């Protein structure tokens, strides 16, 4: 997290810390699913000759302490079928689910986040929080950090990419957040964490995006997977009952 603040216990109780091919994040759904980015499990431009172990930690804001709370074994990894690991310029469908072997017991420091039920969260300027244990300037963070970012205008993000002569795909399943003037951003190691928005009407927190990719950190926009577009897929995979 660039330009962020240190989170306190219980600020982001859904935050998961993952250690797979590197540091990553995730968010608790229900009491045994972790929503994360597919590329934390199948990174782009990576030699996949061996499968990395998937370690998931929950319930704390400090790396040492969260690891002391023990690893939550993963029963199943579900990658969205549209995700293309081999295409390094396309993070479309960068979404995955981890099913934990055992349900976790919820408490003040460990609570799930909700899924969006509306598209209005993606309107320009809608503020959200991104948290993570990722890079902070040039060093890793041992504490959970967060930034408060607005959803950016899609057109400006596209132009920003064009100006940088990038071939990266900015699909309809993504949205961008941040601002080149803010100096605030998510960064490497934050991937898989969520862009969390507080819904005013219901006073509940909703995961509208998943930290996916960006060009550098803190110098422009960050790109996030649009969770709303995948709600049906998520519900189907986690078998949500009435």
């Amino acid at each position, binding site marked *: 997290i660039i330009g962020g603040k240190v*989170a*306190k*216990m*219980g*600020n*982001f*109780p*859904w935050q998961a810390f993952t250690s797979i091919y590197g540091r990553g994040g995730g968010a608790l*759904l*229900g*009491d045994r699913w972790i929503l994360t980015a597919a590329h934390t499990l199948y990174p782009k431009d990576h030699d996949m000759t061996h499968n990395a172990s998937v370690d998931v930690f929950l319930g704390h804001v400090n790396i040492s302490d969260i690891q002391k709370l023990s690893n939550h074994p993963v029963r199943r990894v579900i990658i969205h079928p549209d995700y293309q690991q081999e295409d390094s310029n396309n993070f479309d469908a960068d979404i995955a689910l981890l099913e934990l072997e055992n*349900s976790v*017991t*919820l*408490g*003040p420091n460990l*609570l*799930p*986040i*909700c*899924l969006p039920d509306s598209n209005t969260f993606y309107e320009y300027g809608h503020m959200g*929080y991104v948290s993570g244990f990722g890079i902070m300037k040039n060093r890793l963070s041992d504490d959970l950090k*967060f930034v*408060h970012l607005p959803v950016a205008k899609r057109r400006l993000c596209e132009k920003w990419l064009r100006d940088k002569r990038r071939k990266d795909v900015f699909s309809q399943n993504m949205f961008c957040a941040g601002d080149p003037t803010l100096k605030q951003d998510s960064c490497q190691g934050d991937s898989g964490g969520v862009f969390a928005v*507080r*819904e005013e009407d*219901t*006073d*509940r*927190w*909703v995961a509208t995006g998943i930290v996916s990719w960006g060009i550098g950190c803190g110098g422009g926009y960050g790109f996030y997977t649009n969770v709303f577009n995948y709600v049906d897929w998520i519900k189907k995979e986690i078998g949500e009952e*009435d």
Partner: protein
Amino acid sequence: TIHLPQKLFGEVTSPLYPKPYPNNLETTTVITVPTGYRVKLAFWHFDLEPSESCLYDYVKISADKKTLGRFCGQMGSPLGNPPGEKEFISQGNKMLLTFHTDFSNEENGTIMFYKGFLAYYQAVDLDECASQSNSLEESLQPRCQHLCHNYIGGYFCSCRPGYELQNDGHSCQVECSSELYTEPSGYISSLEYPQPYPADLRCNYSIRVERGLTLHLKFLEPFEIDDHQQVHCPYDQLQIYANGRNIGEFCGKQKPADLDTSSNSVDLLFFTDESGDSRGWKLHYTTEVIKCPQPKTLDQFTIIQNLQPQYQFRDYYIATCKQGYQLVEENQALLSFTAVCQDDGTWHRAMPRCKIKDCGQPQHLRNGDFNYTTTEGVNTYEARIQYYCHEPYYKMHIKDGSSESERGTYTCTAQGLWKNEKAGEKLPRCLPVCGKPVNPVEQKQR
């Protein structure tokens, strides 16, 4: 002499009948019917020359070496001795009919013609037993020593109880070693009662009636068995066994009290010595259906279905429990209970108890718990609990139109299961509450 073939009936006529019979004739017709029958003969037509004492023409009937009559004249005429409608019956199975005519049939110088006779005979059963009494009168040997039974064409003898018919089919000898009585009631007595019983008896009278019946014995007066004042029944004695168990030995002149044997199998052994002059004994035995005691419940929760006013052998009752209770027999739960009245008047199994159904400890609710809304820790029938979820992190999943209170209420049912009114045994679910951090991020600085 004409011997008619042995038949059960037939006709006999005078020669040339119905034409006038010839003179100077004497024929004897021998009528024979099968043994065990008598001959009965009657005249249907009779027309013979009448004479004083039937000296000229006549018909003589004889049987059993006796003459039954000598007849002449005409039916309805005062002359001679016509037989009229009289029936002649032999004692034995043979009857002789002799027809005699003289040299002429004249009346006042006029030749008369007489047609003769037509007689009909038939075999009738001989009551050999009745003839026995006749024989007695004549000092003949009786046909049967004890009892005589007539049947058509014959008779047979039998003996009084305690005697056995001998091979001659006539005489009876004492045999009382295996007398069997199977009727539901009857009389049994010593031989010759109330006359003195014979000497040296070894009699065994067995009464065997159906299972489920019990025998009662009632002795009648007089009761008299040779006795001794100091020694108990040294001479003659009557022993009584019920189901092989000795229930008494009797002698003297005091009749035993009525006996309820509680058995369907009684044996009476009567022993006599070589002397004595006592008149013996007689009893009337009756049977009664064995009854089982009226079933009584051991608690107020047991129900006896279709309770009868009384129960006898082979009757049964079914016990059930009131709703919410369970049949228990020696700490063993039963699905059903039936008890049958046995032939000894006892129930084949004891009355069960009804124990209140216990639903056991309620199931643990994941991410929740429960409270007793009835007595704490009591899990029996009609106990009630309320499940709840650990809020605020979990919330009970409910369907439309229901409330957490309704969904979480479980009652211990009569089946011994905790059940919710709508969902049955299925436990409620405590679902995670999403998006509600207890300590959400807060930024004061603006």
